[in-house]
Protein backbone atom coordinates (compact mmCIF):
# COMPACT_ATOMS: atom_id res chain seq x y z
CA UNK A 1 0.00 0.00 0.00
CA UNK A 2 1.34 3.45 -0.84
CA UNK A 3 1.32 5.72 2.14
CA UNK A 4 0.84 9.42 2.41
CA UNK A 5 4.40 9.71 3.69
CA UNK A 6 5.54 8.43 0.32
CA UNK A 7 3.05 10.33 -1.79
CA UNK A 8 3.28 13.66 -0.05
CA UNK A 9 7.01 14.43 0.10
CA UNK A 10 6.16 18.12 0.20
CA UNK A 11 4.33 17.84 3.51
CA UNK A 12 5.52 20.54 5.86
CA UNK A 13 8.30 19.32 8.13
CA UNK A 14 7.69 20.15 11.76
CA UNK A 15 10.93 21.47 13.25
CA UNK A 16 9.82 24.11 15.72
CA UNK A 17 6.79 25.89 17.21
CA UNK A 18 6.09 27.91 14.08
CA UNK A 19 6.00 24.94 11.73
CA UNK A 20 4.05 22.92 14.31
CA UNK A 21 1.45 25.69 14.54
CA UNK A 22 1.09 25.76 10.77
CA UNK A 23 0.74 21.96 10.62
CA UNK A 24 -1.82 21.91 13.43
CA UNK A 25 -3.88 24.76 11.98
CA UNK A 26 -3.98 23.05 8.59
CA UNK A 27 -4.34 19.38 9.43
CA UNK A 28 -5.74 19.10 12.96
CA UNK A 29 -7.78 22.10 14.17
CA UNK A 30 -10.46 21.86 11.44
CA UNK A 31 -11.06 18.16 12.18
CA UNK A 32 -10.50 17.77 15.93
CA UNK A 33 -14.19 17.85 16.83
CA UNK A 34 -14.90 15.20 14.19
CA UNK A 35 -12.16 12.98 15.64
CA UNK A 36 -13.75 13.46 19.04
CA UNK A 37 -17.15 12.36 17.77
CA UNK A 38 -15.76 9.45 15.75
CA UNK A 39 -13.64 8.28 18.67
CA UNK A 40 -10.49 7.87 16.65
CA UNK A 41 -7.75 9.65 14.77
CA UNK A 42 -7.80 8.65 11.10
CA UNK A 43 -4.92 6.83 9.47
CA UNK A 44 -4.54 9.71 7.04
CA UNK A 45 -3.48 12.05 9.85
CA UNK A 46 -1.16 9.45 11.38
CA UNK A 47 0.56 9.12 8.02
CA UNK A 48 0.71 12.87 7.59
CA UNK A 49 2.36 13.11 11.01
CA UNK A 50 4.89 10.56 9.81
CA UNK A 51 5.56 12.64 6.72
CA UNK A 52 6.00 15.73 8.91
CA UNK A 53 8.51 13.98 11.17
CA UNK A 54 6.34 14.53 14.24
CA UNK A 55 6.52 11.20 16.04
CA UNK A 56 9.89 11.25 17.78
CA UNK A 57 12.01 14.11 16.44
CA UNK A 58 14.19 14.12 19.57
CA UNK A 59 15.82 10.83 18.56
CA UNK A 60 19.23 11.03 16.89
CA UNK A 61 18.77 11.39 13.17
CA UNK A 62 20.81 10.08 10.32
CA UNK A 63 21.95 13.16 8.45
CA UNK A 64 23.49 11.15 5.66
CA UNK A 65 26.85 9.50 5.21
CA UNK A 66 26.46 7.67 8.49
CA UNK A 67 26.51 10.95 10.45
CA UNK A 68 23.98 11.38 13.26
CA UNK A 69 22.76 14.57 14.88
CA UNK A 70 21.31 14.87 18.35
CA UNK A 71 17.70 15.34 17.36
CA UNK A 72 15.29 18.02 18.57
CA UNK A 73 15.95 19.51 22.01
CA UNK A 74 13.27 19.00 24.64
CA UNK A 75 12.34 22.66 24.98
CA UNK A 76 11.42 22.69 21.30
CA UNK A 77 9.71 19.31 21.62
CA UNK A 78 7.59 20.80 24.40
CA UNK A 79 6.61 23.70 22.18
CA UNK A 80 5.64 21.29 19.41
CA UNK A 81 3.54 19.19 21.79
CA UNK A 82 1.88 22.34 23.11
CA UNK A 83 0.84 23.28 19.61
CA UNK A 84 -0.51 19.80 18.93
CA UNK A 85 -2.34 19.93 22.26
CA UNK A 86 -3.84 23.24 21.28
CA UNK A 87 -5.34 21.52 18.27
CA UNK A 88 -6.38 18.18 19.74
CA UNK A 89 -5.54 16.52 23.05
CA UNK A 90 -6.20 13.09 21.59
CA UNK A 91 -3.54 13.55 18.93
CA UNK A 92 -1.16 14.98 21.51
CA UNK A 93 -1.84 11.93 23.70
CA UNK A 94 -0.75 9.65 20.87
CA UNK A 95 2.46 11.66 20.60
CA UNK A 96 2.96 11.52 24.36
CA UNK A 97 2.91 7.75 24.69
CA UNK A 98 4.96 7.28 21.53
CA UNK A 99 7.49 9.77 22.90
CA UNK A 100 7.68 7.93 26.22
CA UNK A 101 8.38 4.56 24.67
CA UNK A 102 10.78 5.92 22.04
CA UNK A 103 12.78 7.78 24.68
CA UNK A 104 12.85 4.74 26.95
CA UNK A 105 14.23 2.52 24.20
CA UNK A 106 16.83 5.13 23.26
CA UNK A 107 17.81 5.73 26.89
CA UNK A 108 17.66 2.24 28.33
CA UNK A 109 17.82 -0.10 25.38
CA UNK A 110 20.69 -2.43 24.55
CA UNK A 111 22.49 -1.77 21.25
CA UNK A 112 20.44 -4.57 19.69
CA UNK A 113 17.14 -3.16 21.00
CA UNK A 114 18.01 0.32 19.77
CA UNK A 115 18.97 -1.01 16.37
CA UNK A 116 15.74 -2.98 16.13
CA UNK A 117 13.31 -0.31 17.26
CA UNK A 118 14.70 3.25 17.29
CA UNK A 119 14.77 3.95 13.54
CA UNK A 120 11.22 2.67 13.06
CA UNK A 121 9.95 4.55 16.13
CA UNK A 122 11.68 7.70 14.93
CA UNK A 123 10.04 7.55 11.53
CA UNK A 124 6.67 6.52 12.92
CA UNK A 125 6.68 3.26 11.00
CA UNK A 126 6.12 1.60 14.35
CA UNK A 127 3.74 3.33 16.78
CA UNK A 128 4.10 2.63 20.46
CA UNK A 129 1.93 2.57 23.57
CA UNK A 130 2.85 2.73 27.25
CA UNK A 131 1.22 0.01 29.36
CA UNK A 132 1.29 0.74 33.08
CA UNK A 133 -2.27 1.15 34.41
CA UNK A 134 -4.33 -1.88 35.31
CA UNK A 135 -7.91 -2.44 36.43
CA UNK A 136 -6.66 -2.28 40.03
CA UNK A 137 -3.66 0.04 39.77
CA UNK A 138 -3.34 3.52 38.29
CA UNK A 139 -1.01 6.08 39.79
CA UNK A 140 0.06 3.49 42.36
CA UNK A 141 2.61 1.51 40.38
CA UNK A 142 3.31 -0.65 43.40
CA UNK A 143 -0.13 -2.18 42.91
CA UNK A 144 0.79 -3.74 39.56
CA UNK A 145 -0.44 -7.33 39.32
CA UNK A 146 0.82 -8.21 35.83
CA UNK A 147 3.77 -10.52 36.13
CA UNK A 148 6.54 -12.15 34.19
CA UNK A 149 8.40 -15.33 34.99
CA UNK A 150 11.66 -16.47 33.48
CA UNK A 151 11.28 -19.55 31.36
CA UNK A 152 13.58 -21.27 28.87
CA UNK A 153 15.94 -18.31 28.87
CA UNK A 154 13.14 -15.85 28.09
CA UNK A 155 10.02 -14.55 29.78
CA UNK A 156 6.33 -15.41 30.02
CA UNK A 157 3.99 -12.45 30.57
CA UNK A 158 0.50 -12.55 32.08
CA UNK A 159 -1.79 -9.71 33.08
CA UNK A 160 -4.26 -7.06 32.00
CA UNK A 161 -3.49 -3.43 31.22
CA UNK A 162 -6.27 -0.84 31.11
CA UNK A 163 -6.76 2.73 29.83
CA UNK A 164 -3.92 2.28 27.36
CA UNK A 165 -3.68 5.32 25.07
CA UNK A 166 -3.31 4.27 21.43
CA UNK A 167 -3.72 0.67 22.52
CA UNK A 168 -6.14 0.14 19.63
CA UNK A 169 -3.56 1.13 17.04
CA UNK A 170 -0.06 0.77 18.47
CA UNK A 171 2.33 -1.80 17.05
CA UNK A 172 4.60 -2.04 20.08
CA UNK A 173 3.74 -2.05 23.77
CA UNK A 174 6.06 -1.15 26.63
CA UNK A 175 4.58 -3.26 29.42
CA UNK A 176 5.44 -2.91 33.09
CA UNK A 177 5.15 -6.15 35.02
CA UNK A 178 6.26 -7.65 38.27
CA UNK A 179 9.38 -9.81 38.14
CA UNK A 180 10.76 -11.98 40.91
CA UNK A 181 12.66 -9.01 42.36
CA UNK A 182 11.12 -5.76 41.12
CA UNK A 183 9.02 -4.20 38.37
CA UNK A 184 10.48 -4.61 34.89
CA UNK A 185 9.73 -3.01 31.53
CA UNK A 186 9.16 -5.33 28.58
CA UNK A 187 8.90 -4.64 24.86
CA UNK A 188 5.96 -6.61 23.48
CA UNK A 189 5.08 -6.50 19.77
CA UNK A 190 1.33 -6.31 19.23
CA UNK A 191 1.32 -9.41 17.06
CA UNK A 192 2.75 -11.61 19.80
CA UNK A 193 0.58 -14.71 20.39
CA UNK A 194 -1.53 -14.22 23.51
CA UNK A 195 -1.98 -10.45 23.12
CA UNK A 196 -5.63 -9.38 22.93
CA UNK A 197 -6.73 -5.77 22.42
CA UNK A 198 -10.23 -4.65 23.44
CA UNK A 199 -11.21 -1.06 22.52
CA UNK A 200 -12.58 1.17 25.29
CA UNK A 201 -15.14 3.56 23.83
CA UNK A 202 -17.06 6.62 25.05
CA UNK A 203 -14.46 8.02 27.40
CA UNK A 204 -15.11 11.38 29.06
CA UNK A 205 -12.19 13.07 27.32
CA UNK A 206 -9.41 12.47 24.80
CA UNK A 207 -12.07 10.37 23.14
CA UNK A 208 -10.10 9.93 19.91
CA UNK A 209 -6.95 8.61 21.57
CA UNK A 210 -7.94 5.03 20.77
CA UNK A 211 -7.79 3.75 24.33
CA UNK A 212 -7.86 0.02 24.93
CA UNK A 213 -7.68 -2.74 27.46
CA UNK A 214 -4.94 -5.19 26.61
CA UNK A 215 -4.73 -8.74 27.90
CA UNK A 216 -1.52 -10.74 27.94
CA UNK A 217 -2.08 -14.47 28.32
CA UNK A 218 1.04 -16.62 28.53
CA UNK A 219 2.82 -14.30 26.11
CA UNK A 220 6.23 -15.83 25.40
CA UNK A 221 8.99 -13.24 25.08
CA UNK A 222 12.65 -13.58 24.24
CA UNK A 223 15.43 -12.61 26.64
CA UNK A 224 15.82 -9.33 24.75
CA UNK A 225 12.31 -8.20 25.70
CA UNK A 226 13.48 -6.76 29.03
CA UNK A 227 14.25 -3.06 28.61
CA UNK A 228 16.88 -1.59 30.88
CA UNK A 229 18.39 -2.85 34.07
CA UNK A 230 16.83 -5.31 36.44
CA UNK A 231 16.90 -5.01 40.18
CA UNK A 232 16.55 -1.75 42.10
CA UNK A 233 17.21 0.48 39.14
CA UNK A 234 14.40 -1.06 37.11
CA UNK A 235 12.14 1.50 38.79
CA UNK A 236 14.12 4.24 37.10
CA UNK A 237 12.86 3.14 33.69
CA UNK A 238 9.36 3.82 34.95
CA UNK A 239 10.32 7.04 36.73
CA UNK A 240 12.19 8.44 33.77
CA UNK A 241 9.58 7.47 31.23
CA UNK A 242 6.73 8.90 33.30
CA UNK A 243 8.73 12.09 33.75
CA UNK A 244 8.82 12.64 30.02
CA UNK A 245 5.14 11.74 29.72
CA UNK A 246 4.32 14.21 32.45
CA UNK A 247 6.28 16.87 30.58
CA UNK A 248 4.29 16.20 27.41
CA UNK A 249 0.99 16.31 29.31
CA UNK A 250 2.06 19.61 30.87
CA UNK A 251 2.76 21.06 27.42
CA UNK A 252 -0.55 19.74 26.15
CA UNK A 253 -2.31 21.38 29.08
CA UNK A 254 -0.77 24.71 28.10
CA UNK A 255 -2.15 24.04 24.63
CA UNK A 256 -5.63 23.56 26.09
CA UNK A 257 -5.43 26.90 27.92
CA UNK A 258 -4.28 28.58 24.73
CA UNK A 259 -7.07 26.97 22.74
CA UNK A 260 -9.63 28.06 25.33
CA UNK A 261 -8.25 31.59 25.22
CA UNK A 262 -8.35 31.77 21.44
CA UNK A 263 -11.88 30.36 21.28
CA UNK A 264 -13.13 32.76 23.95
CA UNK A 265 -11.42 35.82 22.50
CA UNK A 266 -13.02 35.11 19.12
CA UNK A 267 -16.45 34.40 20.60
CA UNK A 268 -16.39 37.42 22.93
CA UNK A 269 -15.55 39.67 19.99
CA UNK A 270 -18.67 38.63 18.11
CA UNK A 271 -21.29 37.79 20.70
CA UNK A 272 -23.41 40.57 22.14
CA UNK A 273 -25.42 40.74 25.36
CA UNK A 274 -27.76 43.64 26.01
CA UNK A 275 -26.19 45.58 23.18
CA UNK A 276 -22.64 45.10 24.37
CA UNK A 277 -19.99 42.78 23.02
CA UNK A 278 -18.99 40.15 25.55
CA UNK A 279 -15.39 41.32 25.34
CA UNK A 280 -16.38 44.68 26.80
CA UNK A 281 -17.96 43.20 29.93
CA UNK A 282 -15.66 43.35 32.99
CA UNK A 283 -16.50 39.85 34.19
CA UNK A 284 -15.58 38.40 30.80
CA UNK A 285 -12.42 40.50 30.69
CA UNK A 286 -11.45 39.08 34.08
CA UNK A 287 -11.80 35.52 32.80
CA UNK A 288 -9.78 36.29 29.66
CA UNK A 289 -7.04 38.03 31.61
CA UNK A 290 -6.73 35.02 33.91
CA UNK A 291 -6.41 32.75 30.87
CA UNK A 292 -3.67 34.92 29.41
CA UNK A 293 -1.80 35.05 32.70
CA UNK A 294 -2.01 31.34 33.43
CA UNK A 295 -1.09 30.39 29.86
CA UNK A 296 2.07 32.44 30.16
CA UNK A 297 2.90 31.17 33.64
CA UNK A 298 2.32 27.53 32.69
CA UNK A 299 4.36 27.96 29.53
CA UNK A 300 7.28 29.33 31.55
CA UNK A 301 7.13 26.44 34.02
CA UNK A 302 7.13 23.96 31.16
CA UNK A 303 10.00 25.73 29.42
CA UNK A 304 12.02 25.64 32.65
CA UNK A 305 11.42 21.90 33.02
CA UNK A 306 12.47 21.42 29.39
CA UNK A 307 15.59 23.52 29.82
CA UNK A 308 16.61 21.44 32.83
CA UNK A 309 16.04 18.24 30.83
CA UNK A 310 18.22 19.49 28.02
CA UNK A 311 20.91 20.36 30.57
CA UNK A 312 20.66 16.91 32.17
CA UNK A 313 19.84 18.47 35.54
CA UNK A 314 18.29 16.18 38.14
CA UNK A 315 16.00 18.99 39.28
CA UNK A 316 14.01 18.61 36.06
CA UNK A 317 11.96 15.83 37.65
CA UNK A 318 10.48 18.05 40.33
CA UNK A 319 10.22 20.98 37.92
CA UNK A 320 8.13 18.75 35.67
CA UNK A 321 5.86 17.71 38.53
CA UNK A 322 5.25 21.38 39.33
CA UNK A 323 4.69 22.30 35.68
CA UNK A 324 2.24 19.47 35.10
CA UNK A 325 0.33 20.18 38.29
CA UNK A 326 0.04 23.89 37.55
CA UNK A 327 -0.73 23.54 33.85
CA UNK A 328 -3.30 20.77 34.20
CA UNK A 329 -5.25 22.45 37.00
CA UNK A 330 -5.16 25.75 35.10
CA UNK A 331 -6.36 23.97 31.94
CA UNK A 332 -9.29 22.42 33.78
CA UNK A 333 -10.20 25.76 35.36
CA UNK A 334 -10.03 27.76 32.15
CA UNK A 335 -11.71 25.17 29.97
CA UNK A 336 -14.59 25.32 32.44
CA UNK A 337 -14.66 29.10 32.18
CA UNK A 338 -14.51 28.83 28.41
CA UNK A 339 -17.73 26.82 28.43
CA UNK A 340 -19.21 29.41 30.78
CA UNK A 341 -18.32 32.26 28.44
CA UNK A 342 -19.93 30.43 25.53
CA UNK A 343 -23.12 29.72 27.51
CA UNK A 344 -25.39 27.15 25.89
CA UNK A 345 -23.25 27.33 22.76
CA UNK A 346 -20.42 25.98 24.84
CA UNK A 347 -22.37 22.84 25.63
CA UNK A 348 -22.89 21.81 22.02
CA UNK A 349 -20.85 20.69 19.04
CA UNK A 350 -20.60 24.04 17.25
CA UNK A 351 -17.67 25.25 19.34
CA UNK A 352 -14.58 23.40 20.56
CA UNK A 353 -14.84 24.39 24.21
CA UNK A 354 -16.93 21.39 25.36
CA UNK A 355 -14.18 19.12 24.02
CA UNK A 356 -11.54 21.23 25.74
CA UNK A 357 -13.49 20.98 29.00
CA UNK A 358 -13.69 17.19 28.82
CA UNK A 359 -10.09 16.80 27.70
CA UNK A 360 -8.78 19.12 30.41
CA UNK A 361 -10.26 16.98 33.16
CA UNK A 362 -8.25 14.02 31.89
CA UNK A 363 -5.03 16.03 32.23
CA UNK A 364 -5.55 16.19 36.00
CA UNK A 365 -5.58 12.40 36.18
CA UNK A 366 -3.06 10.98 33.74
CA UNK A 367 0.71 10.49 34.29
CA UNK A 368 0.20 10.72 38.03
CA UNK A 369 -3.01 12.12 39.46
CA UNK A 370 -2.82 15.64 40.81
CA UNK A 371 -3.29 14.29 44.32
CA UNK A 372 -0.14 12.19 43.92
CA UNK A 373 1.63 15.22 42.47
CA UNK A 374 0.74 17.38 45.43
CA UNK A 375 2.02 14.74 47.85
CA UNK A 376 5.28 14.54 45.91
CA UNK A 377 5.71 18.30 45.66
CA UNK A 378 5.01 18.68 49.37
CA UNK A 379 7.54 15.97 50.20
CA UNK A 380 10.14 17.85 48.21
CA UNK A 381 9.34 21.05 50.07
CA UNK A 382 9.67 19.27 53.40
CA UNK A 383 13.04 17.75 52.66
CA UNK A 384 14.40 21.01 51.28
CA UNK A 385 13.04 23.39 53.88
CA UNK A 386 12.55 21.55 57.15
Amino acid at each position, binding site marked *: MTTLAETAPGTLQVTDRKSARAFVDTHIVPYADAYDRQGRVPEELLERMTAAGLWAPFLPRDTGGGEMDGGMDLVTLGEVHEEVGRGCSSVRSLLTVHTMVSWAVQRWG*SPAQREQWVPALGRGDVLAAFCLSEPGAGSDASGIASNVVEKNGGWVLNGVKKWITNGQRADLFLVFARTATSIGAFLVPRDSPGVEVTPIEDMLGTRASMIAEISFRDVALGPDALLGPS*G*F*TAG*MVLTGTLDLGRYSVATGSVGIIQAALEACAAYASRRTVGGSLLKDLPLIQAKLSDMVTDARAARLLVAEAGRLKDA*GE*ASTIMATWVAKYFASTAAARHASEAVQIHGANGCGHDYPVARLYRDAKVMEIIEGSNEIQRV*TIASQAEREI*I
Partner: protein
Amino acid sequence: MSGNAKEQILDFVRARYPQADIDETQDIFALGFVNSLFAMELVMFIEKTFEVTIPNDELKIDNFRTANTMAELVDRLSPARV
Protein backbone atom coordinates in the same frame (compact mmCIF):
# COMPACT_ATOMS: atom_id res chain seq x y z
CA MET B 1 39.08 12.58 41.12
CA SER B 2 37.41 10.26 43.63
CA GLY B 3 37.99 12.48 46.66
CA ASN B 4 36.41 15.40 44.91
CA ALA B 5 33.65 13.21 43.48
CA LYS B 6 32.91 11.87 46.93
CA GLU B 7 32.41 15.36 48.31
CA GLN B 8 30.23 16.44 45.42
CA ILE B 9 28.06 13.34 45.79
CA LEU B 10 27.76 13.88 49.53
CA ASP B 11 26.81 17.52 48.94
CA PHE B 12 24.07 16.41 46.55
CA VAL B 13 22.64 13.84 48.96
CA ARG B 14 22.85 16.23 51.91
CA ALA B 15 21.14 18.96 49.90
CA ARG B 16 18.26 16.59 49.23
CA TYR B 17 18.10 15.39 52.83
CA PRO B 18 19.49 18.24 54.94
CA GLN B 19 18.05 16.75 58.11
CA ALA B 20 20.22 13.65 57.75
CA ASP B 21 23.75 13.22 59.00
CA ILE B 22 25.46 11.28 56.22
CA ASP B 23 29.08 10.41 55.71
CA GLU B 24 30.89 8.72 52.86
CA THR B 25 30.53 5.20 54.23
CA GLN B 26 26.89 5.22 55.21
CA ASP B 27 24.46 3.09 53.23
CA ILE B 28 21.78 5.49 52.01
CA PHE B 29 19.50 2.56 51.21
CA ALA B 30 19.75 1.30 54.77
CA LEU B 31 18.89 4.81 55.97
CA GLY B 32 15.67 4.60 53.96
CA PHE B 33 16.31 7.64 51.76
CA VAL B 34 16.12 6.08 48.34
CA ASN B 35 12.96 5.84 46.32
CA SER B 36 12.72 5.60 42.53
CA LEU B 37 12.50 9.39 42.22
CA PHE B 38 15.68 9.96 44.19
CA ALA B 39 17.42 7.09 42.40
CA MET B 40 16.68 8.77 39.07
CA GLU B 41 17.86 12.13 40.38
CA LEU B 42 21.04 10.51 41.65
CA VAL B 43 21.81 8.90 38.30
CA MET B 44 21.12 12.15 36.46
CA PHE B 45 23.30 14.07 38.90
CA ILE B 46 26.24 11.70 38.49
CA GLU B 47 25.96 11.61 34.69
CA LYS B 48 25.68 15.39 34.43
CA THR B 49 28.28 16.35 37.03
CA PHE B 50 30.98 13.90 36.01
CA GLU B 51 30.15 13.76 32.30
CA VAL B 52 29.74 10.00 32.24
CA THR B 53 27.06 7.64 30.98
CA ILE B 54 26.18 4.86 33.37
CA PRO B 55 25.54 1.67 31.36
CA ASN B 56 22.75 -0.68 32.38
CA ASP B 57 25.15 -3.26 33.77
CA GLU B 58 26.55 -0.70 36.23
CA LEU B 59 23.11 0.27 37.52
CA LYS B 60 23.42 -2.09 40.45
CA ILE B 61 22.39 -1.29 43.98
CA ASP B 62 25.87 -1.92 45.37
CA ASN B 63 27.27 0.88 43.19
CA PHE B 64 24.94 3.41 44.80
CA ARG B 65 24.95 2.44 48.45
CA THR B 66 27.51 4.97 49.68
CA ALA B 67 29.35 8.05 48.48
CA ASN B 68 32.45 5.89 48.37
CA THR B 69 30.97 3.31 46.00
CA MET B 70 29.47 6.02 43.80
CA ALA B 71 32.85 7.77 43.57
CA GLU B 72 34.44 4.47 42.60
CA LEU B 73 31.80 4.07 39.90
CA VAL B 74 32.64 7.54 38.60
CA ASP B 75 36.32 6.63 38.51
CA ARG B 76 35.61 3.46 36.54
CA LEU B 77 33.49 5.29 33.99
CA SER B 78 35.68 8.33 33.54
CA PRO B 79 38.04 8.40 30.58
CA ALA B 80 41.59 7.45 31.53
CA ARG B 81 43.67 10.48 32.38
CA VAL B 82 47.21 10.92 31.06
